[in-house]
């Protein structure tokens, strides 16, 4: 009997050892531990037998390849560019839709569906449109469609932050190929907005016939690929549009697969099941980077994260308390821990890649000063606070570290873990005392970069400071670039001074491609232009 038990014990141990060995050699799928995983990941093609069924030369495109398969991390609910604000939907949209103008690599606005334009006065712009462009349903693209699209943009709650200045009543087609764009007030970011993927041109006739919901599930644009099929939860298929006016793409079919799990996207990319994996989690970067068959395309996002403080609620309605909280944070360590070294400490209120960025921070790390300020504010024995966080890894880590650091000055933090729906509601009801947030910045313009600051916004910052709104309005309505930079510089200084919220990080982001994909550059908007894809 005892002998049998010993045998089974031994067997069990062998099993466990075998499994752990498997677990180790399987690389750093779950963890980002550099030591053992790094070895297998960086192994040369000869050493690590990790190479898959892929053919020998790494960068060569598989023979006869005429499709592009890319994996999104979330399924868009609609592809109507004016009915959502999700980067996944816009990524698919880069193949289906086009915009009036585009921005080239050096930042100049270049003609696209519009051939030329002219500014008549502060609020009037006239665009001449191409006359050889057709929609996927074969109908001609006209100024009527352009006016329809932009008016839609000005009225939809999803895109009013970009196109809300457009006057829906006065914007109209002058003739079939001339669009007169009227603004309600001067709007400096207009061209940035028009050149971004948010300003997509869609077919008036198709959308009105199908209805806005059905159109979003079977969109009609002017781009090089047209919509083919949407298998709910699984994939969206596109096929080449034969009547495309411009240069055709190197692929005839495009498939957007929905692979929510980050490491699953990475594995699929490594095995060659997909060509591009969007939004790779930090833990997979190293493996994708060192794999000779894949390329990591990383860069700094145009969005930033911040620690929201509620200015309409005790104790954070007191400037001294807010500053005490800011001084108590060792930003360098906080950001390094939470973002695994893939983010810079945010030293201002929008990303450095956006016009007019000015380094104003970060707040100094000084626990003594923080304690003194807290006492001065009337809380010598500390204070209790709630901190809201969503259940993703970065936010949870931030919350833990913040709790620890604020604890050192006597602020007792109660962490509340909530899901997106709860957080969104609390936040917009003004009931969120403190939280880490990372809203998506819609375009590379300070007006969008500062999108959390308008006074009418319902999120829980609730600063109620008219001076901020005045500066925002001024910046928005000033066309001269130098003047704009000065205005936004003043605003960043002012926000730093008031400390209504604490900037946290400028995070990096990355997508991965197979080595034979070239031409696809990192986009700070995290919406790469898939029409750039070339096969090696």
């Amino acid at each position, binding site marked *: 009997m005892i002998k049998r038990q010993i045998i089974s014990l031994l067997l069990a141990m062998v099993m466990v050892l075998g499994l752990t060995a498997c677990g180790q050699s399987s690389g750093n799928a779950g963890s980002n531990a550099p030591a053992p995983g790094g070895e297998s990941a960086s192994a040369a093609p000869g050493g690590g037998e990790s190479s898959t069924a892929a053919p020998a030369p790494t960068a060569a495109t598989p023979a006869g390849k005429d499709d592009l398969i890319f994996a999104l991390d979330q399924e868009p609910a609609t592809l109507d560019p004016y009915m959502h604000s999700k980067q996944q939907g816009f990524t698919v949209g880069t193949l289906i839709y086009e915009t009036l103008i585009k921005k080239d690599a050096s930042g100049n606005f270049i003609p696209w569906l519009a051939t030329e334009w002219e500014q008549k006065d502060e609020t009037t712009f006239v665009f001449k449109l191409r006359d050889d462009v057709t929609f996927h349903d074969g109908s001609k693209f006209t100024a009527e469609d352009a006016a329809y699209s932009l008016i839609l943009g000005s009225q939809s709650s999803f895109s009013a932050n970009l196109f809300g200045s457009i006057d829906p009543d006065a914007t109209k087609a002058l003739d079939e190929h001339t669009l007169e764009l009227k603004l309600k007030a001067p709007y400096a970011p207009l061209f940035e907005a028009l050149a971004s993927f948010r300003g997509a041109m869609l077919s008036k006739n198709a959308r009105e016939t199908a209805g806005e919901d059905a159109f979003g599930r079977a969109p009609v644009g002017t781009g090089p690929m047209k919509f083919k099929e949407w298998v709910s939860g699984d994939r969206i298929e596109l096929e080449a549009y034969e009547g495309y006016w411009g240069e055709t793409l190197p692929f005839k079919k495009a498939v957007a697969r929905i692979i929510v799990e980050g490491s699953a996207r990475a594995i699929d990319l490594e095995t060659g099941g997909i060509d591009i994996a969007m939004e790779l989690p930090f833990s997979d970067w190293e493996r994708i980077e060192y794999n000779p068959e894949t390329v990591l395309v990383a860069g700094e996002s145009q969005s930033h994260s911040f620690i929201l403080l509620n200015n309409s609620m005790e104790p954070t309605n007191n400037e001294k308390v807010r500053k005490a909280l800011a001084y108590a944070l060792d930003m360098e360590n906080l950001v390094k821990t939470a973002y695994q070294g893939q983010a810079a400490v945010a030293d201002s209120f929008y990303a450095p890649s956006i016009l007019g960025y000015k380094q104003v921070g970060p707040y100094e790390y000084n626990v003594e000063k923080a304690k003194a300020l807290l006492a001065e504010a009337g809380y010598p024995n500390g204070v209790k606070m709630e901190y809201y966080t969503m259940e993703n890894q970065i936010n949870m880590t931030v919350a833990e570290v913040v709790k620890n650091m604020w604890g050192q000055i006597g602020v007792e933090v109660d962490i509340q873990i909530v899901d997106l*729906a709860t957080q969104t509601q609390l936040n917009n009801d003004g009931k969120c005392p403190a939280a880490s947030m990372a809203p998506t910045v819609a375009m590379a313009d300070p007006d969008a970069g500062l999108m959390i600051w308008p006074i009418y916004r319902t999120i829980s910052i609730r600063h109620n400071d008219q001076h901020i709104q005045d500066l925002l309005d001024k910046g928005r309505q000033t066309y001269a670039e130098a003047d704009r930079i000065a205005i936004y510089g003043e605003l960043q200084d002012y926000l730093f001074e008031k400390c209504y919220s604490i900037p946290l990080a400028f995070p990096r982001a990355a997508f991965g491609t197979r080595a034979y994909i070239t031409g696809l550059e990192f986009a700070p908007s995290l919406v790469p232009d898939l029409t750039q894809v070339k096969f090696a």
Partner: protein
Amino acid sequence: MLRFVVKRIIMTIPVLLGVIFIIFTMMFFTDGDPARLILGDDALPEEVELLREEMGLNDSFLEQFLRYLTGVIQGDLGISYTTKLPVTTEIMARLPVTFKLAVFSTLFAICIGIPAGIISAVRQYSILDNVTMVLALLGITMPNFWLALLLTLFFSVYLGWLPASGLYGPLYYIMPVISISALSVATITRMTRSSMLEVIRQDYIRTARAKGQSEGKIIFKHALKNALIPIITVIGIQFAITLGGAVVNEQVFAIPGLGKLMVDGIKARNYPIVQGGVLVIAIMFSILNLFIDLLYAFVDPRIKTQYQKSSAKMKSTPVAAAGKGVSQ
């Protein structure tokens, strides 16, 4: 027998009503505003209010519940808040995938679990038995998403034999089926073993041996048939679990299943999807339970007579009857 079936079907109606009521109430009182979630942080309060009105979210609990119930009775499960597609369309797009996976996983679990359990029982305390039991223990304790990841790393990344995700052909089913069924295989193995061990010690088995019956016949005809009732119960439960509970595996293998649809629905406060999904799963559970009860009767004539009696007067539940059947 037929009366029993009809009666059972009628009895599922209050159960389903209860399920609808509970899930509706739970969703109603959960934090989070679907209208705000759809429109995002950028929307103005007026816009959110307008959408809430449009979606009927401002009506009282009773109004909303009655409206939903009327819809369900007419076969209309509502419209998904996010995609604006009918809930029935959304569910029907996912159900076949989930159902296929559940069937394959259960079949796989039966094919492996029952033979392994029988061998373990017949060769009790042998090395084979010990290995099987350790493996079964692993199957139960190992998180199956972890197994899923290990499988992908091994078969997709290292060997390159199997596709890592999706469900676009027979090869794609192999890893999901193995990882989803790991728990079922283990549970069925253990149940088969213990149930067989109990039966093998019975007097009638000794009698069968004494009269010179071949060992194969003893095991399969006399022992297994009598040991089958609790095994069937376990199989039924495992099948039901895989129907709604394979969410994590669906995530790892990027499979558009029902579980994933519902979890997304909960996250987005997409009430119609969640309610519809739960309702469909509840219906399938009910059908499955009925089917298993009927299977008992097929396997064990004693239970069949009980059903015939109980169709006149339903007193003892089939499961209790099954328990009695085994412990005899």
